[in-house]
């Protein structure tokens, strides 16, 4: 079987398109590279959706955390503490175990039956956990940035008669993002790497549709050889991480475009902060 044929058969195997059975014998390099690459679709799916939804939620949480109203501030603090203070791995288990406890037949709300079985699937259940997790970490970053928005900029906005939503949207929010962006890039890398945990933590890989690391460990288990499958997975992740850094670097340049000096050099903090 040629490599092109393998790619046709297994290129989209992780989302259920193509050959149903995973390879059983010889496990060629091409098969391994194709299947692991196909699993990367799930990592990208989780990362992109969790980061997009998490971003919105994190902004709201950061604002709630700065609010003088304790009814807003206290819940935001508690949420951030719980999700930042506990391992993601345990959060996955807890989410899965509690989602399994939902009634099989669905819940009756106002005469309508709401199905719940899809929540126990990784694409939904794990995504929810990842959204909440990254929202907590990002909210902490955004809160820090919000606290360091220069006073003068807010006063200038006041002087121009900007208030409320307009002041936030035009002045505070862009500055907050600009200040938070290097740390937020780190968080995005961490979250992307954390997506590999999904299929090792309770959530079953339905019909062997898993992520890149799921297939890598499948091959490593079958061939008793970790020196092929894991480096392939690592190479994919390095490439994807470089792409992610490049994209975030472009955004960073746009956020800083009004500043003559900062735009040209993008340096990320050497520490791995999370």
């Amino acid at each position, binding site marked *: 079987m040629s490599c092109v044929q393998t790619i046709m058969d297994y290129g989209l195997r992780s989302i259920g398109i193509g050959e149903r059975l995973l390879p059983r014998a010889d496990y060629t390099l091409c098969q391994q590279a194709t299947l692991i690459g196909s699993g990367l679709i799930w990592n990208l799916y989780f990362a992109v959706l969790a980061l997009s939804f998490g971003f919105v939620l994190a902004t709201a949480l950061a604002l709630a955390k700065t609010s003088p109203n304790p009814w807003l501030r206290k819940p935001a603090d508690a949420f951030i503490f719980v999700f930042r203070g506990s391992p993601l791995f345990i959060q996955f288990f807890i989410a899965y175990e509690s989602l399994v406890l939902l009634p099989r037949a669905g819940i009756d709300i106002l005469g309508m039956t709401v199905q719940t079985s899809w929540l126990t699937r990784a694409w939904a259940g794990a995504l929810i956990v990842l959204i909440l997790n990254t929202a907590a970490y990002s909210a902490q970053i955004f809160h820090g940035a919000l606290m360091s928005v220069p006073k003068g900029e807010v006063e200038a906005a006041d002087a121009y008669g900007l208030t409320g939503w307009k002041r936030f949207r035009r002045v505070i929010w862009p500055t907050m993002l600009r200040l938070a962006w290097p740390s937020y890039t780190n968080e995005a890398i961490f979250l992307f790497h954390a997506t*590999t945990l999904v299929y090792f933590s309770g959530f079953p890989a339905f019909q062997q549709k898993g992520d890149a690391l799921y297939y890598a460990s499948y091959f490593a288990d079958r061939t008793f050889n970790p020196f092929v499958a894991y480096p392939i997975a690592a190479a994919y992740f390095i490439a994807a991480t470089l792409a992610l850094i490049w994209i975030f670097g472009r955004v960073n340049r746009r956020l800083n475009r009004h500043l003559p000096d900062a735009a040209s050099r993008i340096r990320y903090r050497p520490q791995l902060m999370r």
Partner: protein
Amino acid sequence: MFSYCADPSSLEGLVWLSCYLTSGTHLLFYASFGTVLLLLAITAPIALLFGFGGAMASRSRIAPLRWFGGIYTSMVRGVPDIIFFLFVPIALDQGFEWVRHQILCDSDAPVRQGNDFVVCAAAKLPLNSAAPWVHDVYGIFLAVIAFSVVFGAFAANVLSGAMQAVPRAQLETAEAYGMSRAQVNRRVLIPQMWTYALPGLSNLWMILIKATPLLFLLGVEDIVYWARELGGSKTSAFTYPHPDWRLYYFLGILVFYLGMTWISGRVLDRVTRRLSKGQATMGGEALRKETPA
């Protein structure tokens, strides 16, 4: 454990619970919290050492050593740590067995035959005849190495950043006094870098705490293993039948971790204050203004 626990089926309510929570398997579950703490206690210093080595290597004047240090310090930037956790133990295990195979076996047969990894009985690690606890300890040993390698890489990243953050002028001053490179490192660079490294290292400690449940992936009988084992629904064939209680066990583990990170956060805040004292940094300046001399 208690004398009234002899016949659990006749017990009810809190008495039943007190017997249930002190059964033999539960004591093993509580001991596994000790395994987690032990792993933290062993891994943290080794990882710091690895990190220090990596950071020093990445500043070395010998090119191959510098390349190695550079790769080591940046490897966790691009590759998820979970890949290393899966890769390092099995790779090490096979590496050890391969070396022993070369020394101890007199067969010329290759180690890899098709999809099998074959070494002779004498080269097995641990030996088939070894006691079960040897297998457990070997598993934990591999886990400690895996954690140390990965967190050593994280630490190398933090420390090399901290070394670069030490003001260049301080090192130049030391050189001007005629100190050799080793002396500059020992007397100025290393003492000065800690305050820059501390935020990163305390953050790393938090990441390390939160990575300990991954022991489960390495096949160690840790808290996650026991929570799944004990929490799963037990039929009446068991001494203590109960429905699926895994959620409660995991909530217990959650509380354990929240406590760990909360206490660590408090302690690290104090240490940061201590180390910022008298430093030419924002934190040090804030402390100086706080307490007028």
